[in-house]
C-alpha cells in the first residue's frame, strides 16, 4: 500500500518551538495544524465500511468520516481517529450485522492508521494547569512553613479526564481563584497571633429538651435524659447540649444530677469534647475530658471541670453499656440478651425477615414487648440450641444499627442505663494553655526567621526594614512558592510590596503577611503548574515531586534536579521520594482516582448494609495499601489479579470477604481495624483488583450495583481505555433495585440502540460478570428477590466468560494489556495530560521489553516509566 510522503512531513513539521526566553527547553507541541491526504485505499475502506453511518449527516456517535484528509490538527480530531483505530481493531466496527471487510482489507487499513497516528503524535508537552487542592495545600505549607488542612474546601473536579491533574479539562474560574484566596486567608490566620477578647464567665442552665436526639441515642422521660447505648457512632449513642457552645477556650464547670439503673455492675459516664461543626464520627476520635462512675440505683449531683476550646461542646457517652456493635461484641451481647429473655428470642424467631423496618426504634421495641407477653412466646423456652438461632443472629447482625435502636429501649426501661437531669454549665472560669497560640508563634518565627524583630508576645513585634535582608529572604520564599527561581524583577516587586506596606501608618505584621499572601496566591507563577517561566530542570523536578509526593520539590531533589535527565539520576530520586512518608499522598491520590475509590465517600450505602465510618475507612484504604505493597515489594503485575492475600483490616476481611477465623477474639476492638496481610484461599472470588470492595462499591449507587458503571470502570481503569461519554439524548437505563430485570435484558436494551451498541458491546459484558459482587463487594449468588445471577457473557472480541474466575484468568493470560493500562494511567497522572497514540505506543514497547526480560514487576515498571520520553517531555 502506498501512502503519501507529505503526511509524514506534515506531521513532523513545526513541532518544535523556540524556547528563547524560557530557557533551553526544547518544547514539542502541536501548535501547527497538521493534515494530509488519506490514501486511496484508506478512502475506499472508509467509504465501503463506515460512511453509511458516519457521514456528515448521520455522524453516529459523533464520528464523521466523510473526509479526504487525515486531519489531526486538534485533540478532538486525534481522539476521533484513535476511536476509529480501537473500534476497527477490536472488531466492533463495522457492526456485526453489516457487511464486513476482509481480513486483509482490515489489516491494511489498520496498518496505515497505526503508522499515520504514530507519525501524527510524537511526544507532547504538557500545558499549564492550576494546582490541584492537594498541590495547593502542600505548596502553601512549603512556602510558609506551616501545616494546613484544606480538605473541606470545594475544588473543581476535572470531569473530562481520569485525574484532577490532567491539563485538558482543568479550568481557571473566578470560583477557583476565590478558593485560592480563601486558602490564602487560612495562611494569614495561621500566622496571626490572636489576641482574643476576654469572655466573662456565665452560667447556662440546659434542660432535657435541649439535648440532641438522633437514631434513638437518648430517651427523654419527664425531666430526665436516658442514655443506654454504647455504640461507637456518636450520633447513635451519645448526646450533647444543642444550645451551648463554648464561647472561648477555658475551663468549664459542669454540674448535673445522675440517676442509674443497673443490676449490679457500676455505670460509667464519659465526657468527650465535640465540635458540632465537624462530622459526628466515632466516640474513639473525640478528645476525652472526664468520667463519672455511679453504682447501680444511686442518684447524686456531680460536678466536673473540663477544658473546652472555643466552639466545642461536652459529649455524654455511657461507655459501660453492653450494647456495642463492633466485632464479636454484638454477638456476645445478643447471646446474653436472649439468655435472659428467651421470650424475645421466641418472637424474633417467628418474625418475617423482610419486614425489617417494623422492628426499628421505640415502636419496634413496643411490638417486641407486646408479642413477648403472649403465651406462645412467654413459655416457649427456646435457647441457643434452637435450629433457627444462627440464622436469626445472622439476620440481626446484618442490620445491627437498626436493632440497636430497638434494644436500647429495653435498657432504658430495665438497665443498665443512666439518666441526666439537665446540666448547668459555668465558664469560662480560667484560661488554659492553648497549643494554638504557641503554634502560631512558632510558625511566625519559622516563616519570617531573622526578619522578625522583637518578641512575638510583645506588641512591638515588627519586621526588619533592611531592603537587602528582605530581598534575600524573599528569594527563598518565592522560590518555594513558584517551584522555580524568581527573576530579579519579581524579587524587587515583592520587596517593594513589603516595604511599602510596612511604611503605611500602623501596618502590622498581619497586614504585611496578608498583602504578601494575597498577591502570591493569585499570581500566575504560583497558581500554574509547568509555568513557561520555569527552567527545564525546575519543571521536571516539580513534575516528579508532585507525582510521587504531591509536594513541591525540596532538598536534594531541588539541588540535583539536573540529574533527572539521566536514567540513573531519575530512578535514584524517584526511589528516594518513594521512601519518604510524603509518598503516601501518591498512593492515596493516584489509587483514589485510578480506581475511582475517592468516589465512595459520596455514596450513602443503604441501611441494609449497616455501614459506619470505620467500615468506610477500612474499605477506602484497602486498595491504597494494596498498591503500596505491590510497589514496595516489587511484586509481579499478575499479583494485581491473583494474590494469595488481601491487605486489609480483619474486620473488612471478615465482614465483606467472609474470610473465616480472621477476627482474633482476644484482640482489642480497635486493632481489628488495622490493615494487615491476610492469607486468602487460591480460589477466593474477592482476591485482587477484580473483587476488591472499594471499586465495587464506587461503581454502585449505595443501593444496588450499576453494571454499566462497573463495565466502564473495568475498561478505563484496568485496561486503560478511554471511552466517550454517554450521548445525552439517550435515556438512562435505570438499575432496578428489585433485580426484576435481568442484566441480560438490560444488555439487549443497549445493543438494540444504534447509538449505544459500539460502546456497550464492550462495556456491558464486564459489568455483567461483576454482577457477582453486591453493592459493597460481597460475593452473591442471587439478587434479593431470589433471581439467580447469570454472569455468562461473550465479550466484544468473542471470548466466552462464565464467571469472575474466567475474567481473572483472562487478565492473567493478557497481563501485558493490564500493564499498558496501568502504565498509561501512571504516566497520565505524572505528566498531567492524556497520552496520545505515540506515547501509548512507548508504554506498550516498555511492557513488551520488561515482559520478555521477566521483569514486569510493579516498582521496576514504575521506575522505568519515569525514564520514558513521554515522562520527560516538557
Amino acid at each position, binding site marked *: 500500500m502506498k501512502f503519501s510522503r507529505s503526511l509524514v512531513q506534515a506531521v513532523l513539521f513545526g513541532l518544535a*518551538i523556540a524556547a528563547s526566553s524560557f530557557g533551553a527547553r526544547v518544547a514539542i*507541541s502541536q*501548535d501547527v495544524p497538521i493534515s494530509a491526504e488519506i490514501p486511496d485505499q484508506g478512502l475506499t475502506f472508509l467509504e465501503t465500511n463506515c460512511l453509511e453511518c458516519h457521514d456528515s449527516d448521520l455522524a453516529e456517535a459523533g464520528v464523521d468520516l466523510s473526509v479526504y484528509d487525515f486531519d489531526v490538527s486538534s485533540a478532538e480530531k486525534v481522539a476521533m481517529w484513535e476511536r476509529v483505530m480501537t473500534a476497527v481493531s477490536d472488531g466492533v466496527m463495522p457492526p456485526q450485522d453489516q457487511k464486513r471487510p476482509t481480513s486483509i482489507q482490515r489489516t491494511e487499513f489498520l496498518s496505515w492508521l497505526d503508522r499515520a497516528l504514530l507519525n501524527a503524535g510524537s511526544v507532547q508537552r504538557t*500545558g*499549564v494547569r492550576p494546582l490541584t487542592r492537594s498541590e495547593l495545600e502542600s505548596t502553601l505549607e512549603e512556602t510558609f512553613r506551616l501545616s494546613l488542612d484544606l480538605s473541606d474546601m*470545594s*475544588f473543581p*473536579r476535572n*470531569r473530562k479526564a481520569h485525574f484532577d491533574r490532567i491539563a485538558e479539562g482543568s*479550568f*481557571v*474560574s473566578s*470560583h477557583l*481563584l476565590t478558593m485560592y484566596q480563601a486558602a490564602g*486567608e487560612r495562611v494569614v490566620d495561621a500566622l496571626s497571633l490572636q489576641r482574643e477578647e476576654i469572655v466573662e464567665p456565665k452560667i447556662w442552665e440546659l434542660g432535657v*429538651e435541649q439535648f*440532641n436526639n*438522633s*437514631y434513638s*441515642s437518648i*430517651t*427523654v422521660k419527664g425531666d430526665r435524659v436516658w442514655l443506654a447505648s454504647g455504640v461507637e457512632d456518636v*450520633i447513635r449513642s451519645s448526646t*450533647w447540649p*444543642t*444550645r*451551648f457552645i463554648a464561647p472561648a477556650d477555658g475551663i468549664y464547670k459542669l454540674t448535673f444530677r445522675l440517676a442509674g439503673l443497673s443490676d449490679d455492675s457500676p455505670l460509667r459516664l464519659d465526657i468527650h469534647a465535640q465540635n*458540632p461543626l465537624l462530622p459526628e464520627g466515632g466516640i474513639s476520635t473525640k478528645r476525652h475530658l472526664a468520667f463519672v462512675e455511679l453504682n447501680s440505683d444511686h442518684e447524686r449531683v456531680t460536678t466536673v471541670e473540663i477544658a473546652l476550646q472555643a466552639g466545642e461542646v461536652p459529649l455524654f457517652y455511657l461507655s459501660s453499656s453492653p450494647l456495642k456493635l463492633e466485632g464479636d461484641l454484638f454477638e456476645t451481647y445478643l447471646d446474653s440478651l436472649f439468655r435472659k429473655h428467651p421470650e424475645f428470642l421466641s418472637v424474633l424467631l417467628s418474625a418475617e425477615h423482610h419486614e425489617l*423496618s*417494623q422492628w*426499628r*426504634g*421505640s*415502636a419496634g421495641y413496643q411490638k417486641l414487648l407486646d408479642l413477648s407477653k403472649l403465651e406462645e412466646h412467654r413459655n416457649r423456652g427456646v435457647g441457643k440450641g434452637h435450629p433457627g438461632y444462627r440464622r436469626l443472629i445472622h439476620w440481626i447482625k446484618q442490620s445491627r444499627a437498626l436493632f440497636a*435502636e430497638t434494644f436500647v429501649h429495653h435498657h432504658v426501661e430495665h438497665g443498665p442505663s443512666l439518666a441526666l437531669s439537665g446540666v448547668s454549665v459555668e465558664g469560662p472560669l480560667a484560661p488554659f494553655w492553648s497549643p494554638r497560640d504557641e503554634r502560631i508563634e512558632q510558625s511566625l518565627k519559622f516563616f519570617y526567621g531573622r526578619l522578625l524583630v522583637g518578641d512575638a508576645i510583645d506588641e512591638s513585634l515588627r519586621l526588619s526594614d533592611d531592603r537587602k535582608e528582605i530581598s534575600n529572604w524573599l528569594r527563598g520564599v518565592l522560590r518555594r512558592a513558584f517551584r522555580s527561581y524568581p527573576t530579579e524583577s519579581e524579587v524587587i*516587586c515583592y520587596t517593594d*510590596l513589603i516595604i511599602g506596606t510596612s511604611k503605611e501608618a500602623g501596618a502590622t505584621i498581619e*497586614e504585611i503577611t*496578608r*498583602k504578601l499572601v*494575597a*498577591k502570591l496566591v*493569585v*499570581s*500566575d507563577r504560583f497558581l*500554574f503548574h509547568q509555568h513557561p*517561566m520555569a527552567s527545564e530542570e525546575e519543571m521536571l523536578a516539580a513534575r516528579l515531586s508532585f507525582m510521587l509526593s504531591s509536594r513541591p520539590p525540596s532538598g536534594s531533589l531541588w539541588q540535583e534536579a539536573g540529574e533527572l535527565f539521566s536514567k540513573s539520576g531519575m530512578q535514584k530520586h524517584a526511589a528516594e521520594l518513594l521512601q519518604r512518608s510524603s509518598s503516601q499522598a501518591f498512593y492515596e491520590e493516584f489509587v483514589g482516582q485510578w480506581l475511582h475509590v475517592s468516589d465512595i465517600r*459520596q455514596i*450513602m450505602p*443503604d*441501611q441494609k448494609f449497616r455501614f459506619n465510618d470505620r467500615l468506610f475507612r477500612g474499605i477506602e484504604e484497602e486498595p491504597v495499601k494494596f498498591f503500596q505493597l505491590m510497589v514496595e515489594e516489587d511484586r509481579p503485575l499478575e499479583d494485581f489479579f491473583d494474590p494469595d492475600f488481601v491487605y486489609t483490616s480483619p474486620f473488612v476481611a471478615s465482614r465483606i470477604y467472609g474470610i473465616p477465623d480472621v477476627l482474633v477474639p482476644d484482640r482489642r476492638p480497635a486493632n481489628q481495624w488495622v490493615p494487615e496481610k491476610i492469607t486468602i484461599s487460591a480460589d477466593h472470588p474477592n482476591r485482587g483488583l477484580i473483587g476488591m470492595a472499594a471499586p465495587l462499591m464506587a461503581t454502585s*449507587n*449505595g*443501593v444496588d450495583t*450499576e453494571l454499566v458503571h462497573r463495565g466502564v470502570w473495568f475498561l478505563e481503569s484496568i485496561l486503560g481505555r478511554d471511552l466517550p461519554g454517554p450521548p445525552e*439524548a439517550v435515556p*438512562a437505563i*435505570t*438499575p432496578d*433495585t428489585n433485580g426484576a430485570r435481568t442484566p441480560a435484558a438490560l444488555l439487549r436494551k443497549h445493543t438494540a440502540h444504534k447509538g449505544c451498541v459500539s460502546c456497550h458491546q464492550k462495556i456491558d459484558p464486564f459489568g455483567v460478570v461483576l454482577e457477582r459482587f453486591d453493592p459493597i463487594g460481597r460475593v452473591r449468588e442471587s439478587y434479593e428477590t431470589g433471581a439467580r445471577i447469570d454472569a455468562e457473557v461473550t465479550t466484544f472480541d468473542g471470548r466466552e466468560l462464565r464467571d469472575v474466575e474466567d475474567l481473572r484468568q483472562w487478565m492473567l493470560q493478557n497481563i501485558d494489556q493490564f500493564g499498558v493500562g496501568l502504565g498509561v494511567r501512571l504516566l497520565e497522572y505524572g505528566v498531567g495530560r492524556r497520552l496520545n497514540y505515540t506515547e501509548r505506543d512507548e508504554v506498550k514497547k516498555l511492557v513488551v521489553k520488561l515482559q520478555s526480560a521477566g521483569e514486569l514487576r510493579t516498582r521496576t515498571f514504575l521506575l522505568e516509566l519515569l525514564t520514558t520520553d513521554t515522562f520527560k517531555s516538557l
Partner: protein
Amino acid sequence: MRAVKRRSFLQGCGGAALTIPWFDSLLGAASKRGDLNPTRFVAVGAYLGFHQDSFFPEAVGKDFVSPMLLEPLERHRDHYSVFSGLDHRAASGHHNWSSFLCGKKIGSESLDQRLARHLSTGCRLESLQLAAGKPVEAMSFSAEGVPLPEIYRASQAYSQIFTSSSDRERNRAILTSGRSVIDDVLNDAKSLSGKLNHHDRQRFDQYLEALRSVELRMAKNLNALDMETVEIPYKLPETDPVSPSRMLESESIMYDLISLALQSDTTRVATLNIDGKGPVFTFDGQPLQAGYHALSHHGNDISKIQDLLRIEREHTKCLSAFLDQLHGISDSEGRTLLDTTTVLLGTGMGDASRHENLNLPTLVAGGMVKSVGHLRYDSNGETLLGDLFLSIERAHGLENRKFCEAHAGISELEK
C-alpha cells in the same frame, strides 16, 4: 418614598438590632444598576423528598382538594402549581439526589446557577447556597461542574448576607489588600501572554478573565461596606442550630435569611438544601417513634408514615411562612416580592422508602409563572422535570433551548 416599608422587615426574636445595607427601595437599588424589572429565584430541595400520596392531589387542575402536605399552603392556592410525574429519568439511590437541579447528568450547571448569571447582575452575591442540617449531597453546581458549598451555620449565612460592624473592618482589610494586588498581578500576567503557545494562551486568557471577575466582585463588596445601613430587629439564636435535633429550627431561620437577602437585594438567587439524616424530632413534648431517615423507610407502616408526615408538614409550613413574607413586602408599584419571585420546592428523591428517583414531588410558587393547579404527567411520557425548568428560565427572560434532555418547556405555565 421608600418602597420597602420598615414594617415589612422580619420580626425576629427581638433584642439586639441587626445592621444591613439599606437601599432606597428594592426597585430603586435595582434601577441604579439599570435593571428595571428585577426578578428572583429560590429553590428548596428536601433530601428525603415527600410522601407522594400526601403530596400529590388526587384531582388535576385547579379544583383539587389539598392533600395533607399541601394544607399549610392553602392560603397561597392562587400562587402555586403542583406537578406529578416529572423527573430526570435519573438512576435510583441517594447518590443521584444531586440530579435535582442539574438534570440527569450530575455536575451539569444547576438551574439556580443558570438563572443567577442572568438575574443577579450587579448584586453583591450572585447566589446564596444555604442548608438546614449538614447536607449529604450537593444541590448547586457551577458551570464548571463544581459543587457549590452550602452554608449550614445560620451565623455564617448571616454574616455572608450582612456584614456586622465587628467584621466590617476585617473584611475591609482583606478586600483592600486583595484588590490592590490584583492590578499588579494582572499587569505581570499580561506581559507574559505574548510569549505563550496556543494552549497556554487559552488557559491564561481564562485566568485573566477570572482575575477581572474577582476584582469586580471585591469592588462590589467594598462598596457594600460603605452603603447606608438600617437597623433590623432580627436576632439569631445564641448558638447556631447545627445539631441534628435543631434542623427544623435551622430551616425556619434559613428561610428568614433568604427573605432578608432578597429584600436587601444582596442576591436574587438562593437555594436551601434540607438535610435528612437521623434526628428524632419532638412534637408537643412527645418524641417521634424514630429518626427522620428511619421514618422515611416506613415500609408503608401507617404509624411511621404519620410520624414522617409530621416532619414533612413542617417543611411545607416553613415554605408557607416564607411565601407569607414575600407576599407581605410591596414595592412602590404595588408589586409584592412574591410577584417577582419563583420559588421551587422539590427533591431529587421520588420515594425515599424505595430509594427511587422517579416521579419527584415538585411545587412552583410565585408570580412569574402561571398558576395552573395540579399538572399530572405520565412518568413514562416525554415531559421531563427539565421542561418545567426551561419554562421557569423562560419566565425569567432566559432564552435557553435545552435543559439537559428537555427542550419543549411546559406551555400551560406561560403567561
